[in-house]
């Protein structure tokens, strides 16, 4: 061996990780900005100079249109729409991600088990997932929520039931892709437990598509919560729920369009934010 063999090897410069490259994607940044606006609004809601969201301003009922006192107007109960939208963001931004995370907590292990073990485990899990995925999703939600009743917990539960099979399917696919890679064999050769291999070796490598899916899923969950609200199965009153607000406003859309317009815009922008972020992430992942 010559001395030259010890020449320090220059590390291959490769694009940094997905999240660090995020700023290079305009689409993702637009999405992130939209989301951040809402997250900030939600966090700061208690300190912002807003009216209490559930307080009725009886005086404002006669002139419910947007005004200096109530920038986005008041609803049919005289409550400040702006305050309700901002406080509604708190609801949405806790329930939707919680539900999505809960769905992941169920879906990921199922998918990992199915993908890793294959055979009858896979068959059983896949069959169960197929069954649930065959349901038209809203019908599933309607049946679930209308029977178990609308509440934060139940909405989370419904999302878990409806969404985790989809997640399981994605994770299963990703696991199948990875399962036969040599690093899994290497882990087996040092006798790692199946749980270790699934969680430590396989799962982290599914994260790319899962991050994208997670964003999309939050967006879709927001829509779902909105639809539930719209169908009258929304989060319990009086705390503001965007879907319910749109629903309440639809009756007077011809005379006081702002009542449902603004919450609808809120839903659209927030969902758009998550969709854009997901799209940007996906583009970035593809560019790798």
């Amino acid at each position, binding site marked *: 061996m010559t001395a030259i063999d010890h020449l320090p090897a220059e590390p291959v410069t490769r694009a940094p990780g997905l999240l660090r490259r995020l700023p290079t994607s305009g689409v993702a940044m637009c999405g992130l900005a939209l989301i951040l606006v809402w997250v900030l609004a939600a966090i700061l809601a208690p300190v912002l100079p807003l009216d209490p969201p*559930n307080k009725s301003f009886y005086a404002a009922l006669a002139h419910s249109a947007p005004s200096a006192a109530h920038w986005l107007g008041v609803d049919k109960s005289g409550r400040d729409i702006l305050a309700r939208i901002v406080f509604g963001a708190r609801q949405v931004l806790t329930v939707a991600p919680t539900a999505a995370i809960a769905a992941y907590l169920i879906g990921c292990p199922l998918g990992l088990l199915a993908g890793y073990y294959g055979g009858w485990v896979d068959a059983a899990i896949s069959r169960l997932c197929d069954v649930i995925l065959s349901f038209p999703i809203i019908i599933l939600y309607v049946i679930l929520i209308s029977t178990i009743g609308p509440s934060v917990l139940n909405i989370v539960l419904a999302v878990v039931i409806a969404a985790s099979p989809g997640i399981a399917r994605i994770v299963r696919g990703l696991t199948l892709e990875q399962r036969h890679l040599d690093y899994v064999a290497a882990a087996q050769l040092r006798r790692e437990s199946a749980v270790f291999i699934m969680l430590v070796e396989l799962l982290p490598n599914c994260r790319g598509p899962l991050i994208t899916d997670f964003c999309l899923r939050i967006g879709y969950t927001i829509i779902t919560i909105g639809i539930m609200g719209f169908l009258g199965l929304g989060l319990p009153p*009086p705390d503001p729920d965007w879907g319910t607000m749109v629903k309440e406003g639809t*009756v007077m859309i011809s005379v006081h369009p702002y009542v449902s317009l603004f919450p609808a815009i809120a839903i659209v922008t927030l969902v758009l934010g998550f969709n854009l972020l997901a799209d940007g992430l996906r583009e970035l992942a593809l560019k790798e």
Partner: protein
Amino acid sequence: GTITGEPFAPPAAAEALPKGGTWRIGTRIKDIKSPHTFSWGEQSNVARQVVEYLTMTGDDNVTRPYLAESWDVSPDLKTWTFHIRKGVKWTKGDELTADHVIWNLKRCLDPAVGSSMIGLVKAYLLNEVTGPDGKPTTELWAPNAIEKLDDHTVRLNCKLPQVAVPEHLFHYPMSILHPDDKGVFGIGAQGTGPFELTEFDLGKRAVLKRRTGYWGGDAAIDGMEQIDIGDDPSASIAALASKQIDGLASAYPSQYDALKALTHLQYYDVKTAETGVMRMKTDTAPFNDARVRKAMRLAVDREALLQVALRGLGSVGADSHCSPVLPDYGTVAIPTRDVAAAKKLLAEAGHPDGIEADLVVPNDIDWFQPMAEASQQMWAEAGIKINLKPIPGASYWDVWTKVPFGITIWYHRPLCTMLLGLAYRTGVPWNESGWSNKEFDALLTQAEGTLDLAKRKEILAKLETIMEEDGPLVQPVFRNVFSFQDKRVKGYTAHPSNYFFGWMIGLDKA
């Protein structure tokens, strides 16, 4: 009501109405097979165009003769004699007789049929007995309780005095069917009314065509089409906006603004006793303490609730379920909000830190939620923490007599005594709150047996005061029943019970 029937000739108005056209009205189309067991006004609105009632309570809450041409009552209010109108012809041509009427009355009072008439008349016409299977059931209190005097005269012999018998006979299941139809209604069913049912599509529409030879003179319109517009209030607005329907059977308070803005529509309303009672179960803590109940009442601002829940389209109530529009209403003062007093009462009742409870809100009545939400805010100021539990309207009926605290819709009844007797007398089936007050029961019985209106109003004032002090309700508002019709619809009036009558209507050419 008025005890002796004023003469009443329904077709009189029809003379002046423009002829022809089909009146399309938006409503819900529910099952109509068994009129005697109807549970919903919408059901009766299809049937009532075909089959009719012995009496009719007008939009002024006065009950007048109808198929019964007139009636007499004994001074003790126990013997009611109804004279059936002569010359009323069924669709197939035979004449309406006392036998037909008695068949209908008996059928409605047969426990096997399961009509809600039983609840209404049980006190004065029925006895509770144990059936052959050991289950409690009912039977006529006396063999001659329903008595045929001649072919056109029917007498009711009551166990107890009752002033509201004519009103009861207009209760929507009490329609007079042809016995040949065996209690089943549908296309081709016989009736005495001005229309025939020609098409029926559950959940979609019902089509009625005018029939000739109606005893009151033929209706002005050719027919009517009742169209199911669903539960969604905005859908019906859109339907009206695009003139797919001429009017609504009834409008929701939440629709008012939007409908008011549609200039081709005419607004009709009527003050009623329809209300949502926030009733507390008096055998469940903390509501088993009258002071708590009173505190609940004191903490709400009725005027504000009227504005928020009903956009002002109603009147304030005094927690007695008795509406000033009813003829036997006894005038009492409307309580004003007093948070301090409420807190004090709570403290006396042993809740210095306030109380907490769930309020079950059926979500099919659009104004309950705003009322509940606003009340929640008001209560909160008095240290009463109320959590709202919305549930589907249909499910509410399963728990309406059970939940500790819930909002129940009570439709209009023409007499205060009717209402109080239905819901607040000790032990009656619909006493959803389980409230029991001996003094109240006694006074109510006294009122029911009092013919003189002025005296009755005095008793009712006492009853209302008892309810204000001790009763199970927070009942802050009464709702106006209202509706919108195209301006070309003539002759329409809003009926407190949301009934409508095709023979009243005429249509200007479009």
